[in-house]
Protein backbone atom coordinates (compact mmCIF):
# COMPACT_ATOMS: atom_id res chain seq x y z
CA UNK A 1 0.00 0.00 0.00
CA UNK A 2 1.12 3.54 -0.65
CA UNK A 3 2.94 4.92 2.32
CA UNK A 4 2.06 8.31 3.64
CA UNK A 5 3.21 9.95 6.83
CA UNK A 6 -0.14 9.05 8.32
CA UNK A 7 0.29 5.38 7.53
CA UNK A 8 3.73 5.35 9.13
CA UNK A 9 2.19 6.50 12.38
CA UNK A 10 -0.52 3.87 11.96
CA UNK A 11 2.07 1.13 11.47
CA UNK A 12 3.78 2.11 14.67
CA UNK A 13 0.49 2.22 16.58
CA UNK A 14 -0.50 -1.14 15.13
CA UNK A 15 2.67 -3.12 15.74
CA UNK A 16 4.00 -1.54 18.91
CA UNK A 17 1.64 -3.07 21.50
CA UNK A 18 2.29 -6.63 20.32
CA UNK A 19 6.00 -5.96 19.97
CA UNK A 20 6.21 -4.40 23.44
CA UNK A 21 4.53 -7.32 25.23
CA UNK A 22 6.51 -9.85 23.21
CA UNK A 23 9.86 -8.21 23.93
CA UNK A 24 9.15 -7.60 27.61
CA UNK A 25 7.75 -11.04 28.46
CA UNK A 26 9.48 -13.37 26.00
CA UNK A 27 12.71 -11.81 24.69
CA UNK A 28 13.89 -10.04 27.84
CA UNK A 29 13.57 -13.22 29.97
CA UNK A 30 15.54 -15.36 27.55
CA UNK A 31 18.31 -12.74 27.39
CA UNK A 32 18.26 -12.39 31.17
CA UNK A 33 18.73 -16.10 31.64
CA UNK A 34 22.07 -15.72 29.79
CA UNK A 35 23.02 -12.94 32.17
CA UNK A 36 21.95 -14.80 35.33
CA UNK A 37 23.81 -17.90 34.21
CA UNK A 38 27.08 -16.05 34.78
CA UNK A 39 26.18 -15.12 38.34
CA UNK A 40 26.12 -16.77 41.68
CA UNK A 41 22.78 -15.77 43.11
CA UNK A 42 20.07 -17.12 45.35
CA UNK A 43 17.45 -14.72 44.01
CA UNK A 44 17.50 -12.43 47.03
CA UNK A 45 21.02 -11.37 48.01
CA UNK A 46 23.45 -9.50 45.75
CA UNK A 47 24.67 -11.19 42.59
CA UNK A 48 28.31 -12.14 42.25
CA UNK A 49 29.81 -12.45 38.79
CA UNK A 50 31.50 -15.84 38.50
CA UNK A 51 31.95 -16.20 34.74
CA UNK A 52 31.43 -19.71 33.45
CA UNK A 53 31.74 -21.43 36.83
CA UNK A 54 28.08 -22.46 36.79
CA UNK A 55 28.64 -24.24 33.50
CA UNK A 56 31.80 -25.91 34.79
CA UNK A 57 29.88 -27.16 37.79
CA UNK A 58 27.01 -28.23 35.57
CA UNK A 59 29.18 -30.31 33.26
CA UNK A 60 30.72 -32.13 36.22
CA UNK A 61 27.35 -32.94 37.76
CA UNK A 62 26.31 -36.59 37.25
CA UNK A 63 22.67 -35.83 38.10
CA UNK A 64 22.56 -33.28 35.31
CA UNK A 65 23.95 -35.75 32.80
CA UNK A 66 21.45 -38.36 33.91
CA UNK A 67 18.68 -35.81 33.26
CA UNK A 68 20.11 -35.24 29.78
CA UNK A 69 20.15 -38.99 29.23
CA UNK A 70 16.52 -39.32 30.36
CA UNK A 71 15.58 -36.45 28.06
CA UNK A 72 17.18 -38.28 25.17
CA UNK A 73 15.13 -41.37 26.06
CA UNK A 74 12.02 -39.22 25.78
CA UNK A 75 13.14 -37.95 22.38
CA UNK A 76 13.90 -41.43 21.07
CA UNK A 77 10.70 -43.00 22.43
CA UNK A 78 8.60 -40.16 21.00
CA UNK A 79 10.17 -40.23 17.54
CA UNK A 80 10.17 -44.03 17.25
CA UNK A 81 6.82 -44.49 18.98
CA UNK A 82 4.63 -41.62 17.86
CA UNK A 83 5.70 -41.06 14.26
CA UNK A 84 5.45 -44.66 12.89
CA UNK A 85 2.18 -45.44 14.70
CA UNK A 86 0.66 -42.13 13.64
CA UNK A 87 1.75 -42.66 10.04
CA UNK A 88 0.39 -46.20 9.97
CA UNK A 89 -3.00 -45.20 11.39
CA UNK A 90 -3.14 -42.16 9.09
CA UNK A 91 -2.57 -44.41 6.05
CA UNK A 92 -5.45 -46.61 7.21
CA UNK A 93 -7.71 -43.64 7.86
CA UNK A 94 -6.95 -42.17 4.46
CA UNK A 95 -9.00 -44.91 2.77
CA UNK A 96 -12.60 -44.58 1.77
CA UNK A 97 -14.07 -46.35 4.75
CA UNK A 98 -17.25 -45.81 6.68
CA UNK A 99 -16.90 -44.21 10.08
CA UNK A 100 -13.42 -42.81 9.48
CA UNK A 101 -14.42 -39.55 11.16
CA UNK A 102 -15.17 -41.22 14.48
CA UNK A 103 -11.75 -42.87 14.57
CA UNK A 104 -10.15 -39.52 13.76
CA UNK A 105 -12.11 -37.72 16.48
CA UNK A 106 -11.12 -40.31 19.07
CA UNK A 107 -7.53 -40.39 17.82
CA UNK A 108 -7.02 -36.68 18.36
CA UNK A 109 -8.81 -36.41 21.72
CA UNK A 110 -5.76 -36.87 24.03
CA UNK A 111 -3.99 -33.94 22.34
CA UNK A 112 -6.68 -31.52 23.53
CA UNK A 113 -6.58 -32.64 27.16
CA UNK A 114 -4.28 -30.92 29.60
CA UNK A 115 -1.05 -32.72 30.41
CA UNK A 116 -1.88 -32.46 34.11
CA UNK A 117 -5.16 -34.32 33.65
CA UNK A 118 -3.42 -36.96 31.53
CA UNK A 119 -0.63 -37.38 34.10
CA UNK A 120 -3.10 -37.76 36.95
CA UNK A 121 -5.25 -40.24 35.02
CA UNK A 122 -2.25 -42.36 34.13
CA UNK A 123 -0.94 -42.17 37.69
CA UNK A 124 -4.22 -43.76 38.73
CA UNK A 125 -3.80 -46.40 36.03
CA UNK A 126 -0.26 -47.21 37.19
CA UNK A 127 -1.20 -47.13 40.89
CA UNK A 128 0.38 -50.20 42.47
CA UNK A 129 -2.54 -50.99 44.78
CA UNK A 130 -5.72 -50.29 42.85
CA UNK A 131 -4.45 -49.18 39.46
CA UNK A 132 -6.09 -50.41 36.27
CA UNK A 133 -2.91 -51.96 34.89
CA UNK A 134 -2.23 -54.24 37.85
CA UNK A 135 -5.93 -55.03 38.17
CA UNK A 136 -5.98 -56.03 34.50
CA UNK A 137 -2.95 -58.28 34.95
CA UNK A 138 -4.57 -59.92 37.98
CA UNK A 139 -7.84 -60.42 36.12
CA UNK A 140 -6.15 -62.29 33.30
CA UNK A 141 -4.12 -64.36 35.77
CA UNK A 142 -0.76 -62.70 35.25
CA UNK A 143 -0.30 -61.76 38.89
CA UNK A 144 3.43 -62.27 38.56
CA UNK A 145 3.70 -59.33 36.19
CA UNK A 146 2.18 -56.74 38.51
CA UNK A 147 4.64 -54.01 39.44
CA UNK A 148 4.90 -50.86 41.43
CA UNK A 149 5.04 -49.04 38.10
CA UNK A 150 5.78 -45.55 39.36
CA UNK A 151 7.79 -46.59 42.40
CA UNK A 152 10.33 -48.97 40.94
CA UNK A 153 13.36 -47.46 39.20
CA UNK A 154 13.30 -50.30 36.69
CA UNK A 155 9.82 -49.49 35.45
CA UNK A 156 9.09 -45.83 36.07
CA UNK A 157 10.77 -44.51 32.94
CA UNK A 158 8.99 -47.09 30.81
CA UNK A 159 5.65 -46.13 32.38
CA UNK A 160 6.30 -42.45 31.78
CA UNK A 161 7.42 -43.01 28.18
CA UNK A 162 4.28 -45.00 27.37
CA UNK A 163 2.14 -42.13 28.63
CA UNK A 164 4.12 -39.62 26.58
CA UNK A 165 3.77 -41.71 23.42
CA UNK A 166 0.05 -42.13 24.07
CA UNK A 167 -0.51 -38.41 24.54
CA UNK A 168 0.79 -37.13 21.21
CA UNK A 169 0.16 -39.83 18.59
CA UNK A 170 -3.01 -37.92 17.69
CA UNK A 171 -1.15 -34.74 16.84
CA UNK A 172 1.04 -36.42 14.23
CA UNK A 173 -1.92 -38.47 13.03
CA UNK A 174 -3.75 -35.27 12.12
CA UNK A 175 -0.67 -33.75 10.49
CA UNK A 176 -0.14 -36.86 8.37
CA UNK A 177 -3.82 -37.06 7.44
CA UNK A 178 -3.73 -33.47 6.22
CA UNK A 179 -0.67 -34.23 4.12
CA UNK A 180 -2.18 -37.44 2.73
CA UNK A 181 -5.26 -35.58 1.61
CA UNK A 182 -3.05 -33.36 -0.50
CA UNK A 183 -1.58 -36.26 -2.44
CA UNK A 184 -3.27 -36.02 -5.86
CA UNK A 185 -5.62 -38.89 -6.59
CA UNK A 186 -4.52 -39.15 -10.24
CA UNK A 187 -1.02 -40.19 -9.26
CA UNK A 188 -2.32 -43.07 -7.17
CA UNK A 189 -4.80 -44.05 -9.89
CA UNK A 190 -2.04 -44.11 -12.45
CA UNK A 191 0.07 -46.38 -10.25
CA UNK A 192 -2.91 -48.69 -9.82
CA UNK A 193 -3.42 -48.81 -13.60
CA UNK A 194 0.20 -49.78 -14.04
CA UNK A 195 -0.46 -52.73 -11.78
CA UNK A 196 1.42 -51.53 -8.71
CA UNK A 197 0.34 -53.27 -5.54
CA UNK A 198 -0.86 -51.30 -2.57
CA UNK A 199 2.39 -51.85 -0.69
CA UNK A 200 4.42 -50.56 -3.59
CA UNK A 201 2.15 -47.55 -4.03
CA UNK A 202 2.38 -46.72 -0.34
CA UNK A 203 6.15 -47.03 -0.06
CA UNK A 204 7.20 -45.78 -3.48
CA UNK A 205 4.65 -43.02 -4.03
CA UNK A 206 2.59 -41.98 -1.03
CA UNK A 207 5.33 -41.84 1.60
CA UNK A 208 7.88 -40.08 -0.65
CA UNK A 209 5.19 -37.52 -1.54
CA UNK A 210 4.60 -36.60 2.10
CA UNK A 211 8.26 -36.90 3.08
CA UNK A 212 8.65 -33.20 3.84
CA UNK A 213 5.70 -33.40 6.24
CA UNK A 214 7.27 -36.41 7.93
CA UNK A 215 10.45 -34.39 8.45
CA UNK A 216 8.50 -31.50 9.95
CA UNK A 217 6.75 -33.96 12.26
CA UNK A 218 10.07 -35.43 13.38
CA UNK A 219 11.46 -31.97 14.13
CA UNK A 220 8.31 -31.00 16.04
CA UNK A 221 8.52 -34.27 17.92
CA UNK A 222 12.13 -33.69 18.94
CA UNK A 223 11.65 -30.11 20.05
CA UNK A 224 8.44 -31.07 21.86
CA UNK A 225 10.19 -33.91 23.69
CA UNK A 226 12.90 -31.59 24.94
CA UNK A 227 10.21 -29.49 26.58
CA UNK A 228 8.82 -32.40 28.61
CA UNK A 229 8.15 -31.10 32.08
CA UNK A 230 4.52 -31.04 33.30
CA UNK A 231 3.92 -34.73 32.77
CA UNK A 232 6.95 -35.90 34.70
CA UNK A 233 6.58 -33.22 37.36
CA UNK A 234 3.04 -34.42 38.13
CA UNK A 235 3.56 -38.16 37.65
CA UNK A 236 6.86 -38.79 39.44
CA UNK A 237 8.51 -35.43 40.14
CA UNK A 238 11.64 -36.98 38.64
CA UNK A 239 11.75 -39.88 41.05
CA UNK A 240 12.24 -42.45 42.28
CA UNK A 241 15.91 -41.65 42.91
CA UNK A 242 16.07 -39.20 39.95
CA UNK A 243 15.35 -42.04 37.54
CA UNK A 244 12.87 -39.98 35.50
CA UNK A 245 14.39 -36.54 35.92
CA UNK A 246 14.65 -34.53 32.70
CA UNK A 247 16.53 -31.28 32.04
CA UNK A 248 13.60 -28.91 32.61
CA UNK A 249 12.76 -30.63 35.88
CA UNK A 250 16.40 -30.58 37.02
CA UNK A 251 16.46 -26.86 36.26
CA UNK A 252 13.18 -26.30 38.11
CA UNK A 253 14.33 -28.12 41.24
CA UNK A 254 17.74 -26.44 41.33
CA UNK A 255 16.16 -23.02 40.96
CA UNK A 256 12.96 -23.10 42.94
CA UNK A 257 13.67 -25.77 45.56
CA UNK A 258 17.38 -25.17 46.16
CA UNK A 259 17.27 -21.47 45.20
CA UNK A 260 20.35 -21.65 42.98
CA UNK A 261 19.10 -19.03 40.51
CA UNK A 262 22.41 -18.61 38.73
CA UNK A 263 23.02 -22.32 38.38
CA UNK A 264 19.40 -22.92 37.33
CA UNK A 265 19.79 -20.26 34.65
CA UNK A 266 22.88 -22.03 33.36
CA UNK A 267 20.73 -25.14 32.90
CA UNK A 268 18.16 -22.98 31.06
CA UNK A 269 20.81 -21.66 28.71
CA UNK A 270 21.98 -25.21 28.10
CA UNK A 271 18.40 -26.30 27.28
CA UNK A 272 18.05 -23.38 24.86
CA UNK A 273 21.19 -24.23 22.90
CA UNK A 274 20.67 -27.96 23.13
CA UNK A 275 17.22 -27.56 21.51
CA UNK A 276 18.52 -25.23 18.81
CA UNK A 277 21.46 -27.47 17.96
CA UNK A 278 19.41 -30.67 17.95
CA UNK A 279 16.74 -29.11 15.73
CA UNK A 280 19.46 -27.77 13.43
CA UNK A 281 21.20 -31.15 13.15
CA UNK A 282 17.94 -33.02 12.49
CA UNK A 283 16.97 -30.49 9.87
CA UNK A 284 20.32 -30.89 8.13
CA UNK A 285 20.31 -34.68 8.39
CA UNK A 286 16.81 -34.99 7.00
CA UNK A 287 17.41 -32.14 4.55
CA UNK A 288 14.35 -30.28 5.73
CA UNK A 289 13.69 -26.61 6.06
CA UNK A 290 13.89 -24.88 9.42
CA UNK A 291 10.41 -23.60 10.27
Amino acid at each position, binding site marked *: *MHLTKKSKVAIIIGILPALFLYILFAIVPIIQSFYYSLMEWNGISDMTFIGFDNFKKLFQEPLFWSSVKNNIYVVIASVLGQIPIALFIALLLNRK*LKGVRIFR*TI*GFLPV*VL*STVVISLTWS*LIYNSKNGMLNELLRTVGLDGLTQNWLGDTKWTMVAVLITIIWQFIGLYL*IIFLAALQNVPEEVLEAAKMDGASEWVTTFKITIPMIWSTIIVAVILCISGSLKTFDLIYVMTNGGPAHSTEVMALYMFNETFSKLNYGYGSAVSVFIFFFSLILIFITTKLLKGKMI
Partner: protein
Amino acid sequence: MEAIVKSEKDTRKKKSTNKKKWTKNTIIYLILGIFSLVNVYPIVWMVINSFKSESEFIVNQFGFPKVFVLENFINAWEIANLGVLFKNSIFICVIATGITVFLGALASYFLSRFTFKMNKLIYTFFIFGLLIPIHATLVPMFILMRNLGLLDTPVTLIFPYIAFHLPITIFILTSFMKAFPKDIEESAIMDGCGIFRVFWSIILPMSRPALATVVILNFIYNWNEFSFALVLINDPGLQTLPLGLANFAGQFTTNYGAQMAGLTMSLIPIVVFYLLLEKEIVQGMTAGAVKG
Protein backbone atom coordinates in the same frame (compact mmCIF):
# COMPACT_ATOMS: atom_id res chain seq x y z
CA MET B 1 -21.35 -71.25 -24.47
CA GLU B 2 -18.09 -69.43 -24.30
CA ALA B 3 -19.84 -66.35 -23.11
CA ILE B 4 -21.46 -68.21 -20.25
CA VAL B 5 -18.15 -69.67 -19.10
CA LYS B 6 -16.58 -66.26 -19.27
CA SER B 7 -19.29 -64.61 -17.23
CA GLU B 8 -19.10 -67.42 -14.69
CA LYS B 9 -15.39 -66.87 -14.40
CA ASP B 10 -16.03 -63.17 -13.95
CA THR B 11 -18.48 -63.65 -11.11
CA ARG B 12 -16.14 -66.09 -9.43
CA LYS B 13 -13.29 -63.62 -9.74
CA LYS B 14 -15.54 -60.86 -8.44
CA LYS B 15 -16.58 -63.03 -5.52
CA SER B 16 -13.00 -63.81 -4.56
CA THR B 17 -11.92 -60.17 -4.77
CA ASN B 18 -14.99 -59.22 -2.77
CA LYS B 19 -14.05 -61.74 -0.14
CA LYS B 20 -10.48 -60.51 -0.12
CA LYS B 21 -11.69 -56.95 0.22
CA TRP B 22 -13.98 -57.97 3.05
CA THR B 23 -11.15 -59.66 4.96
CA LYS B 24 -8.92 -56.68 4.41
CA ASN B 25 -11.52 -54.23 5.64
CA THR B 26 -12.16 -56.35 8.69
CA ILE B 27 -8.48 -56.28 9.58
CA ILE B 28 -8.35 -52.52 9.07
CA TYR B 29 -11.37 -51.97 11.27
CA LEU B 30 -9.89 -54.26 13.88
CA ILE B 31 -6.66 -52.26 13.99
CA LEU B 32 -8.53 -48.95 14.10
CA GLY B 33 -10.77 -50.35 16.81
CA ILE B 34 -7.82 -51.36 18.97
CA PHE B 35 -6.19 -47.99 18.39
CA SER B 36 -9.37 -46.17 19.44
CA LEU B 37 -9.82 -48.35 22.47
CA VAL B 38 -6.27 -47.69 23.67
CA ASN B 39 -6.84 -44.00 22.99
CA VAL B 40 -10.08 -43.50 24.78
CA TYR B 41 -10.30 -46.29 27.37
CA PRO B 42 -8.05 -44.68 30.02
CA ILE B 43 -10.37 -41.67 30.02
CA VAL B 44 -13.55 -43.76 29.98
CA TRP B 45 -12.18 -45.95 32.78
CA MET B 46 -11.63 -42.88 34.91
CA VAL B 47 -15.04 -41.37 34.18
CA ILE B 48 -16.88 -44.62 34.94
CA ASN B 49 -15.00 -45.19 38.18
CA SER B 50 -15.61 -41.64 39.35
CA PHE B 51 -19.21 -42.76 40.01
CA LYS B 52 -18.23 -45.68 42.24
CA SER B 53 -17.84 -45.81 45.97
CA GLU B 54 -14.38 -46.62 47.26
CA SER B 55 -15.43 -50.15 48.19
CA GLU B 56 -17.03 -50.86 44.84
CA PHE B 57 -14.01 -49.49 42.99
CA ILE B 58 -11.79 -52.05 44.71
CA VAL B 59 -13.91 -55.10 43.81
CA ASN B 60 -15.43 -53.99 40.50
CA GLN B 61 -13.02 -51.89 38.51
CA PHE B 62 -14.01 -52.69 34.96
CA GLY B 63 -17.79 -52.87 35.13
CA PHE B 64 -20.38 -50.13 35.22
CA PRO B 65 -21.19 -48.78 38.68
CA LYS B 66 -23.99 -50.67 40.42
CA VAL B 67 -24.85 -47.61 42.46
CA PHE B 68 -24.01 -44.16 41.15
CA VAL B 69 -22.27 -42.28 43.94
CA LEU B 70 -22.56 -38.57 43.27
CA GLU B 71 -20.94 -37.78 46.58
CA ASN B 72 -17.52 -38.06 44.92
CA PHE B 73 -18.39 -35.08 42.79
CA ILE B 74 -19.60 -32.98 45.69
CA ASN B 75 -16.46 -33.85 47.66
CA ALA B 76 -14.15 -33.06 44.77
CA TRP B 77 -15.91 -29.79 44.02
CA GLU B 78 -15.45 -28.69 47.62
CA ILE B 79 -12.01 -30.10 48.44
CA ALA B 80 -10.38 -29.06 45.19
CA ASN B 81 -12.20 -25.74 45.21
CA LEU B 82 -13.19 -26.40 41.60
CA GLY B 83 -15.56 -23.43 41.41
CA VAL B 84 -12.70 -21.01 42.00
CA LEU B 85 -10.37 -22.91 39.66
CA PHE B 86 -12.91 -22.85 36.84
CA LYS B 87 -13.54 -19.15 37.35
CA ASN B 88 -9.82 -18.31 37.30
CA SER B 89 -9.14 -20.47 34.26
CA ILE B 90 -12.02 -19.02 32.28
CA PHE B 91 -11.07 -15.45 33.19
CA ILE B 92 -7.41 -15.85 32.21
CA CYS B 93 -8.18 -17.86 29.11
CA VAL B 94 -10.72 -15.42 27.72
CA ILE B 95 -8.70 -12.27 28.41
CA ALA B 96 -5.36 -13.70 27.25
CA THR B 97 -6.87 -15.23 24.11
CA GLY B 98 -8.77 -12.05 23.29
CA ILE B 99 -5.76 -9.77 23.66
CA THR B 100 -3.37 -12.13 21.86
CA VAL B 101 -5.66 -12.50 18.87
CA PHE B 102 -6.53 -8.80 18.69
CA LEU B 103 -2.95 -7.52 18.99
CA GLY B 104 -1.69 -10.36 16.81
CA ALA B 105 -4.23 -9.59 14.10
CA LEU B 106 -3.42 -5.88 14.19
CA ALA B 107 0.31 -6.52 13.91
CA SER B 108 -0.27 -9.14 11.19
CA TYR B 109 -2.32 -6.63 9.21
CA PHE B 110 0.53 -4.16 9.06
CA LEU B 111 3.15 -6.86 8.54
CA SER B 112 1.26 -8.49 5.68
CA ARG B 113 -0.41 -5.56 3.89
CA PHE B 114 2.19 -2.79 4.10
CA THR B 115 5.73 -2.56 2.84
CA PHE B 116 8.15 -0.70 5.05
CA LYS B 117 11.81 -0.92 5.95
CA MET B 118 11.65 -3.04 9.10
CA ASN B 119 8.82 -5.27 7.89
CA LYS B 120 10.72 -8.47 7.29
CA LEU B 121 12.95 -7.99 10.32
CA ILE B 122 10.06 -7.51 12.74
CA TYR B 123 8.24 -10.51 11.30
CA THR B 124 11.30 -12.76 11.65
CA PHE B 125 11.83 -11.44 15.15
CA PHE B 126 8.30 -12.47 16.11
CA ILE B 127 8.65 -15.90 14.49
CA PHE B 128 11.91 -16.49 16.38
CA GLY B 129 9.69 -16.77 19.45
CA LEU B 130 8.56 -20.19 18.22
CA LEU B 131 12.04 -21.49 19.00
CA ILE B 132 12.25 -20.21 22.58
CA PRO B 133 11.82 -23.09 25.01
CA ILE B 134 9.39 -21.85 27.64
CA HIS B 135 11.23 -23.56 30.48
CA ALA B 136 14.39 -21.64 29.77
CA THR B 137 12.51 -18.48 30.72
CA LEU B 138 10.93 -19.60 33.99
CA VAL B 139 13.63 -18.18 36.30
CA PRO B 140 13.92 -14.73 34.71
CA MET B 141 10.14 -14.59 34.26
CA PHE B 142 9.68 -15.16 37.98
CA ILE B 143 12.19 -12.43 38.81
CA LEU B 144 10.79 -10.03 36.22
CA MET B 145 7.28 -10.51 37.57
CA ARG B 146 8.52 -10.03 41.11
CA ASN B 147 10.25 -6.80 40.12
CA LEU B 148 7.12 -5.55 38.36
CA GLY B 149 5.04 -6.42 41.43
CA LEU B 150 3.02 -8.80 39.29
CA LEU B 151 3.57 -12.06 41.16
CA ASP B 152 0.41 -13.72 42.41
CA THR B 153 -2.23 -11.38 41.01
CA PRO B 154 -5.35 -12.28 39.02
CA VAL B 155 -3.77 -10.92 35.81
CA THR B 156 -0.23 -12.30 36.26
CA LEU B 157 -0.51 -15.21 33.86
CA ILE B 158 -2.08 -13.15 31.11
CA PHE B 159 1.24 -11.45 30.25
CA PRO B 160 3.40 -14.53 29.56
CA TYR B 161 0.49 -16.24 27.81
CA ILE B 162 0.14 -13.33 25.40
CA ALA B 163 3.88 -12.99 24.81
CA PHE B 164 4.48 -16.67 24.11
CA HIS B 165 1.50 -17.17 21.82
CA LEU B 166 1.90 -14.05 19.72
CA PRO B 167 4.46 -15.80 17.44
CA ILE B 168 2.16 -18.61 16.31
CA THR B 169 -0.80 -16.20 16.10
CA ILE B 170 1.10 -13.74 13.92
CA PHE B 171 2.55 -16.57 11.87
CA ILE B 172 -0.84 -18.03 10.95
CA LEU B 173 -2.61 -14.69 10.47
CA THR B 174 0.16 -13.09 8.39
CA SER B 175 0.32 -15.98 5.95
CA PHE B 176 -3.46 -15.88 5.64
CA MET B 177 -3.73 -12.11 5.14
CA LYS B 178 -0.89 -12.09 2.62
CA ALA B 179 -2.99 -14.21 0.29
CA PHE B 180 -5.67 -11.51 -0.19
CA PRO B 181 -5.58 -9.73 -3.56
CA LYS B 182 -3.34 -6.68 -3.58
CA ASP B 183 -5.86 -3.97 -4.31
CA ILE B 184 -8.39 -4.95 -1.73
CA GLU B 185 -7.93 -1.91 0.45
CA GLU B 186 -7.56 0.60 -2.34
CA SER B 187 -11.19 1.17 -3.18
CA ALA B 188 -11.98 1.49 0.51
CA ILE B 189 -9.26 4.09 0.93
CA MET B 190 -10.61 5.89 -2.15
CA ASP B 191 -13.98 5.96 -0.45
CA GLY B 192 -12.33 7.70 2.46
CA CYS B 193 -11.82 4.80 4.85
CA GLY B 194 -8.99 5.17 7.35
CA ILE B 195 -6.30 2.55 7.74
CA PHE B 196 -7.76 1.19 10.97
CA ARG B 197 -11.25 1.22 9.48
CA VAL B 198 -9.98 -1.00 6.68
CA PHE B 199 -8.53 -3.36 9.25
CA TRP B 200 -11.72 -3.52 11.27
CA SER B 201 -14.32 -3.60 8.48
CA ILE B 202 -12.54 -5.42 5.68
CA ILE B 203 -9.47 -7.37 6.75
CA LEU B 204 -10.81 -8.82 10.02
CA PRO B 205 -14.08 -10.15 8.54
CA MET B 206 -12.17 -11.66 5.63
CA SER B 207 -9.78 -13.42 8.00
CA ARG B 208 -12.50 -15.27 9.86
CA PRO B 209 -11.31 -18.84 9.18
CA ALA B 210 -7.77 -18.02 10.30
CA LEU B 211 -9.08 -16.08 13.29
CA ALA B 212 -11.14 -19.09 14.36
CA THR B 213 -8.01 -21.21 14.15
CA VAL B 214 -5.88 -18.94 16.30
CA VAL B 215 -8.67 -18.37 18.84
CA ILE B 216 -9.04 -22.13 19.30
CA LEU B 217 -5.28 -22.76 19.45
CA ASN B 218 -4.79 -19.99 22.00
CA PHE B 219 -7.71 -21.16 24.07
CA ILE B 220 -6.47 -24.75 24.27
CA TYR B 221 -2.88 -23.69 25.08
CA ASN B 222 -4.00 -21.24 27.75
CA TRP B 223 -6.53 -23.61 29.27
CA ASN B 224 -3.93 -26.37 29.67
CA GLU B 225 -0.85 -24.32 30.57
CA PHE B 226 0.92 -25.47 33.70
CA SER B 227 4.55 -24.32 34.02
CA PHE B 228 4.04 -20.56 34.28
CA ALA B 229 1.09 -21.09 36.62
CA LEU B 230 3.26 -23.29 38.82
CA VAL B 231 6.02 -20.72 39.11
CA LEU B 232 4.07 -17.47 39.17
CA ILE B 233 0.98 -18.32 41.23
CA ASN B 234 1.06 -19.28 44.89
CA ASP B 235 -2.27 -18.11 46.22
CA PRO B 236 -4.77 -21.02 46.13
CA GLY B 237 -7.49 -18.49 45.31
CA LEU B 238 -5.71 -17.53 42.09
CA GLN B 239 -4.75 -20.97 40.80
CA THR B 240 -5.85 -22.21 37.41
CA LEU B 241 -7.46 -25.58 36.80
CA PRO B 242 -4.34 -27.65 35.94
CA LEU B 243 -2.39 -26.24 38.88
CA GLY B 244 -5.25 -26.69 41.35
CA LEU B 245 -5.88 -30.25 40.19
CA ALA B 246 -2.23 -31.20 40.52
CA ASN B 247 -2.16 -29.88 44.09
CA PHE B 248 -5.46 -31.54 44.95
CA ALA B 249 -4.32 -34.94 43.68
CA GLY B 250 -1.00 -34.55 45.45
CA GLN B 251 -2.71 -33.98 48.79
CA PHE B 252 -5.51 -36.53 48.52
CA THR B 253 -3.66 -39.47 47.07
CA THR B 254 -5.86 -42.11 48.68
CA ASN B 255 -9.25 -40.63 47.90
CA TYR B 256 -9.58 -42.22 44.45
CA GLY B 257 -13.28 -41.47 44.00
CA ALA B 258 -12.91 -37.75 44.62
CA GLN B 259 -9.78 -37.58 42.48
CA MET B 260 -11.49 -39.20 39.54
CA ALA B 261 -14.60 -37.07 40.00
CA GLY B 262 -12.45 -33.93 40.01
CA LEU B 263 -10.65 -35.01 36.86
CA THR B 264 -13.94 -35.91 35.19
CA MET B 265 -15.44 -32.50 35.91
CA SER B 266 -12.34 -30.73 34.66
CA LEU B 267 -12.58 -32.70 31.42
CA ILE B 268 -16.12 -31.67 30.59
CA PRO B 269 -15.51 -28.12 29.26
CA ILE B 270 -12.55 -28.98 27.05
CA VAL B 271 -14.13 -32.17 25.69
CA VAL B 272 -17.36 -30.32 24.84
CA PHE B 273 -15.28 -27.55 23.25
CA TYR B 274 -13.41 -30.16 21.24
CA LEU B 275 -16.45 -32.07 20.05
CA LEU B 276 -18.27 -28.88 19.02
CA LEU B 277 -15.34 -27.38 17.16
CA GLU B 278 -13.57 -30.57 16.12
CA LYS B 279 -13.37 -29.67 12.44
CA GLU B 280 -11.86 -26.26 13.07
CA ILE B 281 -9.58 -27.53 15.81
CA VAL B 282 -8.16 -30.19 13.54
CA GLN B 283 -7.63 -27.66 10.76
CA GLY B 284 -6.10 -25.19 13.17
CA MET B 285 -3.77 -27.74 14.72
CA THR B 286 -2.67 -28.83 11.28
CA ALA B 287 -2.02 -25.29 10.13
CA GLY B 288 -0.25 -24.41 13.37
CA ALA B 289 1.73 -27.57 13.62
CA VAL B 290 2.78 -28.06 10.04
CA LYS B 291 3.93 -24.50 9.69
CA GLY B 292 5.09 -23.84 13.25
